[in-house]
């Protein structure tokens, strides 16, 4: 036929219910149509116009224009255009259920326009795709059920197929693509099915710009990360195929407002993001990336990295590859990257991990690239253990690390490391950090560090503060300077390059933990000799303490008791003054001091923090010992000297002794024990020879045991003086074979004299103000004489014997008989309550017996007891 001229014709397609599904008005002119024959059908040109296409009453497109030409077996679509088009994927379900069933279960729709030219078809299919321009708007794709969305405001593409059949995206622009990735969307797009055979395909993007894209992530099975980021990209000369990306041109990707969270955490409390970043710009040539793992440029602006147990399982599993391995494991891809330019500005890092305690690390850093080398500059870095100390245990400022990526990962070597300033507080917090289970982490960290080396290390000023090198010593600070070449990066390797050093500390004072204004110890001079290697192993070579003054009193014992409980893991004593309870005790071993030397020390008895009245003169001592794991076991001598307690009228002649001092206390009674021997102990005119006295102190009191030779016999006893408000005390004294003659002569020369050796026992309790109760007993089964000296004056006032009146003679005889009594045994007992008491003294002899009953009353004025003021008492 020469011409088929189809003037506007309306086509209506109906469903099985005869309801209109789609309609279109078609105008068509077919020139030279031939039907039949070997080339049937054939035509010269077909010009088709479609208008007002609708689907279920909704517009599909407003117009389509097609100009088709046929030459030989080829059909050429010379010109085609579509305007005002819109599409809904749901239409396909009725249009082609079979095809629809193969598609993912999604809602989808878009508005589009299209212009095509020079599309050639033949019997074999598409010969040339020609040039296509597609303008899509309001694209959206979302799962049938559940959240999730992929949408874009507009996509403009101009594509063509070259002579080789390769499709080119000559130019393209995608505006405001939004991807809200959710489990529902992932399930719809990436169903869990067996892997399908991939068909080889290839396309080339000459130019494609993506602007103002947004990605919102919800945790899914494949992507456990939640968050949001904005992105844009410029793609140029990029070959995309089923095998990946290829291009010799640079591709750009920029990200902004990045915020990513670990998604598999407690949904009730969304975790903090582990990455936040203002912007990131990536410039990469795919061919270089694939072949050389080279990234031309990566610029990160204002990133904040945060890895804590609360926002992700970052440190749940820390693995270290074996040190000695014949086959080195392949590096992960990100360790193989080399950068033309790697720039990071205003970076911050926060890491928290649970070792023995929670360890928190913060750092501000930048990265720059100069001459293909990467400079990492850490402006500030702090490592702290919050439960232990509010102050950081480790901080650095101005740290510069020079390395070349990726050689750094391959050779495990830094080219240089420079620390301008830093400080390490080596205390319990840091030392106990890797104890317990965390020790495994430390060993792994050490093993990992052992593989690393540094070309040059320069430490300008690294302050080290030893918080508790020994009980009683305050924090000690010193600086470490270090310049080394080709050094292993582990601590031992560093330590070998530091010379032994010493510091001198002066005028140190240990305040009382109970009362800060009081003093536990004063030390004029302390010399500390150490090496860095020793410090790393918690060892100090030598500590010399010159002329310390140790106040022996409850403050010292409070301090010691806290230390002991701390070492044993018990709850510490509650601070009587202020402050919250201390954290759980450390479990790491303490410091070792190879030599702990104390010279010209003074020991001052100060039960309440002030020198004990009458014993204001300190005991001198010196000793040399060692401190192991925080334990001190020292024994030092007090040289022989005379001590006089004037108030007590006590005099110690030739007293010398030993002091046994151990920290922490091994048991309750022997943390500080003084053992004295006294050549002669004098009290008034009484004197005791070869006396010995052992005194033990603890937080509750002073406990003494003594003994001595006394007047032909032996006296021993014990006393406890408690460090309460009134210094309550108790004690006992026993004597055996003591000749009472010199004693009574010395003590009561004007009243009486008892001759003979007795056994006696005195038990008493009281406080500094009064005697609560005292019991005394003494017995003598040997012969002796009891003489009442007080009667001598009366007898002397009488006329001499055989003179005077009969009365005088009788009186003299009576008084002399009463004064002198030879006895064979004595039995005496007395009990006193305060100032009052009673007792008896019985002498039995060949001439009879004497019995004295003694009652002691205190008739001094006393305050009347307070009258009760209760209502009942008033009523009574």
């Amino acid at each position, binding site marked *: *036929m*020469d*011409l088929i001229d*189809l*003037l506007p014709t309306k086509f*209506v*397609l*109906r469903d099985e219910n005869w309801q209109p599904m*789609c309609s279109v008005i078609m105008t068509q002119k077919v020139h030279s149509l031939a039907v039949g024959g070997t080339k049937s059908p054939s035509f010269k040109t077909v010009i088709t116009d479609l208008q007002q296409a609708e689907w279920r009453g909704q517009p599909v497109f407003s117009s389509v224009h097609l100009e088709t030409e046929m030459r030989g077996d080829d059909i050429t679509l010379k010109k085609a255009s579509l305007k005002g088009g819109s599409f809904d994927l749901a239409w396909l379900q009725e249009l082609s259920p*079979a095809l629809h069933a193969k598609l993912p279960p999604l809602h989808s729709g878009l508005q589009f326009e299209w212009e095509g030219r020079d599309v050639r078809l033949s019997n074999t299919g598409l010969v040339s795709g020609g040039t296509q321009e597609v303008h899509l708007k309001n694209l959206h794709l979302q799962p049938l059920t559940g959240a999730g969305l992929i949408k874009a405001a507009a996509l403009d593409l101009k594509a063509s197929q070259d002579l080789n059949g390769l499709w080119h995206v000559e130019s393209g622009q995608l505006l405001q693509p939004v991807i809200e990735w959710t489990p529902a969307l992932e399930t719809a797009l990436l169903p869990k099915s067996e892997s399908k055979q991939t068909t080889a395909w290839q396309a080339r993007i000459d130019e494609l710009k993506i602007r103002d894209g947004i990605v919102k992530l919800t945790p899914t099975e494949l992507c456990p990360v939640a968050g949001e980021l904005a992105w844009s990209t410029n793609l140029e000369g990029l070959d995309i195929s089923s095998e990946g990306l290829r291009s010799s041109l640079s591709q750009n990707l920029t990200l902004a407002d990045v915020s990513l969270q670990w998604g598999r955490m407690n949904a009730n409390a969304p975790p903090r993001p582990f990455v936040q970043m203002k912007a990131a710009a990536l410039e990469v040539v795919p061919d270089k990336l694939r072949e050389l793992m080279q990234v031309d440029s990566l610029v990160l602006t204002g990133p904040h990295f945060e890895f804590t147990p609360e926002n992700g399982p970052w440190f749940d599993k820390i693995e270290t590859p074996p040190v000695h391995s014949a086959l080195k494991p392949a590096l992960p891809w990100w360790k193989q990257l080399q950068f033309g330019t790697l720039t990071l500005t205003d970076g911050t890092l926060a890491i928290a991990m649970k070792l023995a305690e929670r360890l928190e690390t913060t750092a501000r850093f930048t990265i720059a690239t100069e001459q293909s080398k990467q400079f990492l500059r850490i402006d500030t870095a702090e490592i702290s253990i919050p439960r232990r100390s509010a102050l950081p245990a480790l901080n650095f400022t101005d740290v510069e690390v020079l390395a070349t990526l990726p050689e750094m990962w391959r050779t495990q070597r830094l080219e240089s490391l420079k620390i301008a300033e830093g400080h390490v507080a080596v205390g319990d917090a840091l030392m106990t950090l890797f104890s317990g289970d965390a020790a495994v982490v430390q060993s792994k960290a050490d093993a990992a560090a052992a593989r690393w080396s540094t070309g040059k290390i320069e430490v300008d000023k690294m302050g080290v503060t030893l918080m508790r090198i020994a009980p009683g010593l305050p924090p000690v600070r010193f600086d470490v300077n270090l310049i080394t070449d080709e050094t292993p990066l582990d601590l031992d390797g560093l330590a070998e390059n530091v010379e032994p050093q010493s510091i001198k500390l002066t005028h140190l004072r240990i305040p009382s933990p109970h009362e800060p204004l009081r003093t536990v110890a004063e030390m004029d001079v302390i010399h500390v000799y150490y090496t860095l290697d020793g410090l790393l192993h918690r060892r100090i070579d030598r500590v010399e303490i010159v002329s310390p003054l140790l106040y022996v009193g409850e403050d010292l014992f409070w301090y010691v008791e806290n230390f002991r409980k701390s070492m044993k893991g018990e709850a510490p004593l509650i601070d009587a003054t202020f402050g919250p309870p201390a954290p759980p005790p450390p479990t790491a071993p303490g410091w070792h001091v190879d030599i702990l030397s104390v010279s010209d020390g003074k020991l001052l008895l100060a039960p309440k923090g002030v020198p004990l009245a009458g014993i204001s003169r300190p005991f001198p001592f010196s000793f040399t010992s060692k401190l192991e794991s925080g334990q001190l076991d020292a024994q030092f001598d007090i040289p022989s000297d005379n001590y006089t307690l004037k108030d007590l009228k006590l005099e110690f002649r030739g007293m010398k002794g030993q002091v046994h001092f151990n920290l922490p206390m091994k048991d309750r009674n022997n943390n500080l024990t003084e053992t004295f021997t006294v050549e002669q102990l004098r009290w008034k005119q009484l004197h005791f020879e070869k006396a010995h006295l052992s005194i033990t102190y603890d937080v509750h009191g002073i406990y003494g045991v003594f003994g001595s030779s006394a007047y032909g016999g032996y006296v021993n006893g014990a006393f406890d003086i408690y460090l309460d408000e009134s210094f309550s005390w108790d004690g006992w004294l026993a004597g055996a074979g003591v000749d009472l003659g010199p004693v009574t002569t010395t003590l009561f020369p004007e009243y009486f004299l008892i001759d003979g050796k007795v056994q006696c026992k005195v038990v008493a309790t009281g406080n500094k103000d009064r005697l609560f109760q005292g019991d005394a007993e003494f017995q003598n089964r040997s012969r002796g004489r009891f003489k009442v000296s007080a009667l001598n004056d009366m007898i002397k006032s009488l006329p001499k014997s055989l003179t005077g009146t009969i009365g005088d003679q009788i009186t003299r005889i009576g008084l002399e008989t009463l004064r002198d009594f030879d006895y064979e045994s004595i039995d005496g007992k007395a009990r006193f309550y305060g100032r009052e008491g009673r007792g008896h003294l019985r002498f039995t002899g060949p001439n009879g017996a004497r019995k004295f009953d003694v009652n002691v009353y205190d008739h001094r004025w006393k305050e009347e007891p307070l009258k009760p003021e209760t209502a009942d008492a008033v009523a009574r």
Partner: protein
Amino acid sequence: MKSATPTSKLRRCWRWTWRLSLFGVILLSALLCLAWQERVPMANALLRRYLGDMQVEIVSLDWEDGALHVREMSTLHLPSSKRVSTVGHVEWRPHWSELHLGNLGGLKLEEAVVDVPLAWLMPAAPQPGSPAARQPGSSGIILSLEHGLD
């Protein structure tokens, strides 16, 4: 005289032949005139006879200006009693000089409406054992295209 007899027989034969031909022409003309007079019912009858379930009816059939004009043609699908198409005007302008070559000339359709169910355009469900049934991946659209291109 011998020559006159065959001549007269032949002449008679031609005469009768002429008369019969003339009569036939006249009769044919009469029939054609009659058929032309009744062209629309005849065309409708023919269409009804040969188009099976489709009942095509035309309202007028004219020859004007060297072209056949069919007006108001409508197609009724008898099983469903649905009118599936109407054409306001069909014009067929034959190219007489090339008609013997199979060139039918030009065809022009105006004011046409095609109103059919979608199922008519979809490929029939493949019979069991057919190639299409053995190729579940092939689609009806592709098959249609291939058939069309063949």
